[in-house]
């Protein structure tokens, strides 16, 4: 299987470091299973570190959408951080930015879970426009 999932925690926020591909088959299944475990506890705040995710297909996108709705159902929330250039384009193209907050810095992403903390934020649409202008 070409998806590794490592679990960490920062200030009560569950982190999944994903490495490899989120694609049809064992990869998407393993990801879904990991989300199920995370969502078992109501109110889970989950940050998916996408830094080393090199490919997501339509099934992987489905698993990401499911992750978001599964956590919301359990009064939780999922966000994305360190999404590479290719996957950022994919997220914008498929309008997944309408359901996921996306960050380019882990500390900023963690802070976003705490109302009142200052965050610099990440404007995904400006980022994509900037990439296209380059």
């Amino acid at each position, binding site marked *: 299987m070409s998806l590794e999932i490592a679990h960490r925690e920062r200030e009560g926020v569950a982190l999944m470091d994903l490495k490899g591909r989120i694609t*049809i088959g064992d990869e998407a299944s393993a990801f879904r299973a990991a989300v199920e475990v995370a969502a078992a506890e109501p109110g889970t705040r989950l940050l998916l570190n996408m830094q080393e995710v090199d490919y997501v*297909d*339509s*099934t992987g*996108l*489905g*698993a*990401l*959408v*499911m992750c978001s*709705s599964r956590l919301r159902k359990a009064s939780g929330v999922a966000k994305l951080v360190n999404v590479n250039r290719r996957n950022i384009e*994919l997220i914008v*193209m*498929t*309008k*997944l930015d*309408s*359901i996921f907050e996306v960050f380019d810095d882990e500390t900023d992403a963690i802070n976003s879970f705490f109302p009142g903390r200052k965050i610099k934020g990440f404007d995904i649409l400006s980022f994509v426009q900037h990439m296209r202008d380059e």
Partner: protein
Amino acid sequence: MDIARLKVDGTAKFNLSKFRPDDTHGVTKSHAAKALPAQVENLAALHDLLYAEHKRSLLIVLQGMDAAGKDGTIKHVMSGVNPQGCAVTSFKQPSTQELDHDFLWRIHSAVPPKGSIGIFNRSCYEDVLVARVHELVSPAVWKKRYEQINDFEKSLTENNVCILKFFLHMSSREQRKRFDERLADPRKNWKSSPADFKEREYWDQYQSAYQDAIAKCGTKEAPWYVIPSDHKWFRNYAVAEVIVRTLASFKMRYPKAK
């Protein structure tokens, strides 16, 4: 091709899993490539008669999973039809006003008038599909809807509305292929939406819901046609065949000048 093999009208027990999405019923791609343009022309001529005669209307209902080709079928099969006597209505998520009425209200108001063809891109069947899969209403509510739909369709047919319902039957594998194509092709990127990927996760539940909708609402008055849709060329060919043969069976005549 024997279109009766595609038809579900309540005369035999229906089992969706017995219908292969990649079936081509012995039709070759080259035959379909020649036959479709001819049927598109026939359809245009029959539509002209329907319009002139002004006695009845044709309602075409298209249902299918995302990427099954509802838009593509309209584009390819209806390309020769005079826009003056044809209207396409896409039923998306109901508005607040629509939700304030019974579920058939918005459907009834879009039924084609005499002389016209109406195409429903999705329909009241969403109210026993998406509403059931996502538990938007209780089972007690959606279970009653099959009979309500049958009564509604019977009343339309008794008022000279001919109803043809097409289920564009596609495999899960083919849907994944088409979704991946949408992601890879910049000309198709715009078609992708998070809802598509989410709905795909409910594939099995949707297949069960379709099984029941087709089994319970396939009637002599308003039959379902299960169209194998893994091959786009066969899907277009089969839908055109059913529509043309149905219109031809009306034995329509141009009215005499008054």
